[in-house]
């Protein structure tokens, strides 16, 4: 019996073509199947130091993201981070982190399919997001490396500002069940720029 790799679908698989047809000035594409792990640990604890050493990056403070490494670390709450890594890294990372943490109190949970990621880039990104996001996305207020968890339109999202100027590059993490709503909202928000 041959072992077939089971087929998987990302939440916005059906939106690929629609998203590819957005107007000049904004590019939106799904980054499907990224590895996402929720790390919970007490800031300043041995566990946090162990995780930082294991990942080779410090765990960022409030509303900041550490985007330099292979594994991005997003602050989600005072004792909560979301680790984002390329597809297929969950098992390896889970094992490494759990071994780094050892007997200390820290937990890691695989939540890779909980959210999907949209990459937004281009000069229109801010004006499109401003249609539904009450957080001030001006680069002086929310510079590269910020990761506010907030509402976009009526969906909960985490915005990760990768690059701020002149053409912003923003990642948008959205719960899988809200992804289609948000994609429809984004496409509609671009209508004016056609």
């Amino acid at each position, binding site marked *: 019996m041959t072992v077939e790799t089971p087929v998987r*679908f990302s*939440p916005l698989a059906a939106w690929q073509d629609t998203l590819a047809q957005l107007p000049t000035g904004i590019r939106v594409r799904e980054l499907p199947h990224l590895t996402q792990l929720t790390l919970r640990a007490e800031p300043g604890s041995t566990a946090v130091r162990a995780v930082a050493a294991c990942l080779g990056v410090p765990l960022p403070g409030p509303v900041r993201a550490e985007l330099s490494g292979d594994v991005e670390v997003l602050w989600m709450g005072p004792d909560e981070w979301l680790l984002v890594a390329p597809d297929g890294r969950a098992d390896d990372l889970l094992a490494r982190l759990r071994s780094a943490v050892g007997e200390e*109190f820290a937990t890691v949970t695989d939540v890779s399919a*909980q959210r999907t990621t949209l990459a937004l880039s281009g000069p229109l990104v801010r004006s499109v997001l401003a*249609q*539904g996001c009450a957080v001030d996305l001006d680069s002086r207020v929310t510079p590269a490396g910020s990761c506010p968890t907030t509402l976009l339109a009526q969906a909960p999202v985490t915005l990760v500002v990768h690059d701020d100027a002149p053409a912003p590059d923003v990642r948008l993490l959205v719960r899988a069940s*809200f992804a289609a709503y948000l994609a429809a909202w984004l496409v509609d928000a671009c209508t004016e720029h056609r």
Partner: protein
Amino acid sequence: MNTPFRAPGHGRVDRGTTLSFTFDGIAHTGHPGDTLASALLADGVHHVAHGIRYGRPRGVLAAGAEEPNALVQIEFPFPEPMLTATTVELYEGLVARGLSGQGRLSGEPDTARYDTVHAHCDVLVVGAGPAGLAATLAAARTGARVVLVDELPEPGGSLLGSQEPLDGAPAMEWVGAVLAELAEHADVRVLRRTTAFGHYDDGLVLALEKRTDHLGAAAPAHVSRQRIWRIRSRQVVYATGAYERPIAFDNNDRPGIMLAGSARTYLNRFGVLPGTRAVVFTTNDSAYPAALELADAGVRIAAVADVREEVPEHWRSACAERGIAVRAGHVVTGTSGIERVTRAHVAPFGAGRLGERHGVDCDLLLVSGGWNPAVALFSQARGTLRYDAGIGAFVPAGAPGGVRTAGAAGGTFTLAGCLADGVAAAGQALSALGRTVPETALPVTGPLPHGAPARVLWRVPSPRDGREDQDGTLQFVDLQRDATVSDVLRATGAGLRSVEHVKRYTTIGTAHDQGRTSGVMTSGIVAEALGVDVAELGTTRFRPPAVPVSFAALAGRNRGELFDPVRVTALHPWHVEHGALFENVGQWKRPWYYPRAGETIEEAVQRECRAARTGVAMMDGSTLGKINVQGPDAGVLLDRLYTNLMSTLKVGRVRYGVMCGVDGMAIDDGTVIRVAEQEFLLTTTTGNAARVLEWMEEWLQTEWPGLRVHLTSVTEHWVTIPLVGPRSREVLALVAPDLDVSNDAFPFMSWQDTTVAGVAARVCRISFSGELAYEVNVPAWYGITVWEALHAAGDAFSITTYGTETMHVLRAEKAYPIIGQDTDGTVTPQDLGMSWVVSKKKPDFVGKRSFARAENLREDRKQLVGLLPADEHVLLPEGAQIIATSDIPAPPVPMLGHVTSSYRSDALRRTFALALVRSGTRRIGETLYVPLDGRTVPVTVTDPVLFDKEGARRDG
């Protein structure tokens, strides 16, 4: 093309382009830059509408948003009611008609786009007149983030309507230079055609931008027609100007009667002469420039009646030079005319007594009763007002933090004063933000003539006073509501002492112009009638929206498919493809049932139920909330929050649990599996997922922060597929080759990790139907693959997909309650007949102490029971009341309880219901009655479990 009422050399309309439009069925023309009102006046049309109450002809009183009279209905390109002709920008092909108060909404859906945009700034300036422009410029030069909003298509405010020079040149040249400089600042946003209409908490100002209204049918469909700007500003400067105030006199509502400043605007902004022969009636200096500029443009000024005995020499001689007779100490007592004013009656008014009046022929009567600062937004922002007896108006007194006025809005009426005030306001705003404003050079204004104080006059006594039932029956106060001085006097005569009460009694100020021209005047007339000081009386409260805003604009893009987020599971595309009908559960779309061709819902649900009870069926259970609970104290936390014991659960096993509030009432239920020694995974009901997580976090974070537990929502990480029915074991075996599905190896209430259809899966043996059942959980990406594999494997067993309706029937037959349907926040686990889920061993858990409250021990509590209608075809409506007698007694009817769930059961071959009934458990076997359609339906009270009471089916 020129018409007799266009003044050559005046105005900012584009006379090179002609626009055709239709008003009241008659073709007219105008120019870009016109409003509907200016174009009609240019064509000599003054009678544009009728009063709502008396149907009297009405004209154009003003030139802007304060207009109370000239209400129009737009018919083309899209019907829109009750706009003011003075704010409708003219466009090609416009079809409109005058209204008598009310218009009509379109019966057709509005296909235009409307949207909302968030903006943030350091300083928001509202109004692009001289004060607002000066403030914006000063703020912009500091590098601050500035937003300037202005309601007109062109910035300039009052400068658009005057001939006052700046730096020795037309003032609009200065405006142009300011705008050019502002355009250089990347952090300055100038929004035209944008009206701030509401000031809310923490510097949030909402403004309506009319983006394509002025383009008519040529408006591009992809651009939003109107936009709501949500501007969050650290400092707000209201440079909103002032509105001129009319004066009440007999027949002051005729077409051809216009505010003096507005006539000036028609001349200077639109190049329109609003008449040929005018009488001017004023209480102050501001009407003189209007009279002089109109005279210079060719309007014959037949007389100026100035109520003041002393008229400043400057104005007197300027009038004399033009042959204009100035009658000091005179008033206009009334007018004549039918469709339009033809004569003004002028009389001396010395010592408050009318002298002999005589008529002055005219086709235009200009009125100025003084100026009211436009303080609506400032007042909304909780700025306080004080009465300034010198100008007869309410002016800002105390500004709340972060808010200030500038220019005429603050009671400063000279051009030089407004400019300086704008810079000063910007300086204060910026220094509050820790910035310093550099010296801003202001343009030089023309010489200021030596003026005289205004005289406050609300109402000219009528020659008819005392001769009729009520004084002032023809003296209009609120032209839009057709409310008169007599209405005000009737209110005060009825004993009303507050302007708020008078407003509601007379409706003055409640029309969509919000009483801009009538509010202060009403305060004045009420004060006079009551013999009190206007300052004491005050004015009515200003509330948002300051201007009419359509619901379409407020809704923005939250309509159609974006009205509310639609949450879907990973399996949703499959359900759609296979013809499922959906039920809304909160924001989720869940398959309701999967009808086959020609099937009714009853037939489909019966078929689905039968498959689950006799063969095999599957559903999408992915919407269940899932919370991962990890840490050394995970068991302790769950023991405290569930009514039953969770810490004793063995790894590999599953337990059903109920959570209660501190009041002992059930708030949620679900299954808990022990994943590892320090890890549990619990499920919540679909609608409660977020609430339960929040509830658990609240206890953990605030009450027991010492517990070493972490909660993580994994609801959408997993796709959950219940596989249900006597044949489910066989189907599962086909796709999970590594799994020993035998009852011994995989007993009820246990779980196993295995591979299903090649995907790492967690399979639980739990049942929400009483049948042998499994719940297959896989990461959501693989949901469709596994679902399809199960479906294909079940094909040989005629596997049937089922929806929420069937799920409800199956669970109700087994009396598994739905929290929130069979409970309502007043139901304990004991009331549900689930004492077995309440631990007697645990010393405490949330809710436990309340179980011992006397109220919760009462014998006559409502308890969950089954109901079998005597007629097995009668389906009781959910929510139906239950009574004890077959006859409905006289009210108040003693209610014993209500039906919570009601279905047709395929397994029972009849209808049945669950109900909460007072002393229900004790009543089992009794007959009760459900009033239905005027009769009562007898029902037998039963044990709630109606199917497979012994639980013989769960192991297959």
